[in-house]
């Protein structure tokens, strides 16, 4: 995977709006933006109601994902182009999710909805109807997904990249600053994790920084490219953005997203937690 195959520009998108086999999908946690206007031909995916198990804290299982894709009219051989708001957080999460279930051709629209809007490009309200398909997913590719036990085992031995804001990392805030701060879990970070906020990987218009800038960013933060990498944030969507930068753009081979992230880790009993601005020592 490389930048050329994983990321498409708004110009590319505009030229391929009607290309057969290319499906644009807007992904958001709050899909009201889609309803007020979206890229022509795009369908919507609701991160909260469609990509999460309704009861347990987990993803759709393989059969549920197959049913979702079939109902949306997405085929195994379609090229899926994902975009969304929040600087593509949820679109990057969906990208990682499609990869997890083995979809061959997935791309992320660089800059997402923000870039498209700021450029004054066309948005429409018509909702396309796509005929049902018979989609077949693969088993989850767990080389992309980290669970809590391997995260604890990675303390002091692998790269842990905390992509939340410095205040969340230090434990001064428990959530991003556009959300109310009531939370049950403890504040802080996983000991030895470096802090590289996801936002450092993006330009102001939501596009990704160049590979040269990204490489310099992570190297300066102390990332050791010879060791596996686990990225996390609060609920796993900002870390999908960083997973995309590290695995898809820069081509690091062993990169996992810890989707349990701080809302799981910060609520575990008996695990070490570091507070303050420094990574801290393995406990």
């Amino acid at each position, binding site marked *: 995977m490389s930048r050329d195959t994983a990321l498409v520009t708004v110009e590319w998108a505009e030229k391929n709006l009607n290309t057969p086999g290319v499906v644009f999908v807007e992904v*958001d*946690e*709050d899909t009201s*933006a889609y309803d007020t206007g979206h890229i022509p031909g795009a369908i919507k995916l609701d*991160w*909260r109601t469609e990509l999460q198990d309704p009861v347990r804290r987990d993803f759709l299982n393989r059969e549920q994902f197959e049913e979702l894709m079939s109902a949306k009219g997405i085929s195994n051989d379609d090229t899926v182009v994902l975009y969304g*708001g*929040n*600087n593509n*957080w*949820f679109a990057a999460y969906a990208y990682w999710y499609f990869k997890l279930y083995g979809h061959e051709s997935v791309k992320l629209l660089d800059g997402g909805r*923000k870039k498209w*809007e*700021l450029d*004054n490009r066309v948005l429409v309200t018509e909702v396309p109807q796509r005929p049902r398909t018979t989609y077949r997913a693969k088993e989850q590719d767990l080389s992309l997904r980290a669970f809590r036990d391997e995260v604890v085992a990675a303390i002091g031995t692998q790269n842990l990249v905390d992509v939340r*804001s*410095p*205040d969340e990392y230090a434990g*001064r*805030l428990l*959530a*991003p*600053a*556009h*959300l*109310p*701060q*009531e939370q049950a879990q403890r504040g802080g970070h996983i000991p030895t994790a470096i802090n590289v*906020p996801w*936002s*450092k990987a993006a330009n*102001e*218009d939501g596009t990704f920084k160049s590979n040269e800038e990204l490489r310099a960013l992570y190297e300066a933060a102390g990332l050791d490219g010879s060791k596996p990498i686990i990225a996390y944030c*609060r*609920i796993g*969507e*900002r870390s999908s953005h960083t997973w995309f930068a590290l695995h898809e753009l820069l081509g690091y081979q062993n990169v996992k997203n810890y989707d349990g992230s701080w809302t799981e880790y910060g609520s575990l009993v008996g695990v070490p937690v570091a507070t303050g601005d420094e990574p801290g020592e393995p406990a």
Partner: protein
Amino acid sequence: MSAAAASGCGAPDQSAPLTGVDPTRETVITGVVRNSTGTAVGGAYVRLLDATGEFAAEVVSSPEGAFRFYAAPGTWQVRALSRQGTGQVEVPATVGINQVALTVA
């Protein structure tokens, strides 16, 4: 606090009433984005930067131009990007509701 804010990371409705927020405990930075003629600018990308200039959060202003952040006491920058231009303002925030006027040009 809504279920949306509890489980997700997307921005809640920026014009919703501040119910469930304790102004004796939370540090809320809120205001309206306007253009140079004073008209409210909806759909602007409003970001909160910390004292070092580091990104902290971003929301899209409501149709009435409203935005809202939940921060901590300290000095922050609020910056807006819109089709009508950009603007930035410094906010010395304290616990409670901190009102900000932000003009883009």
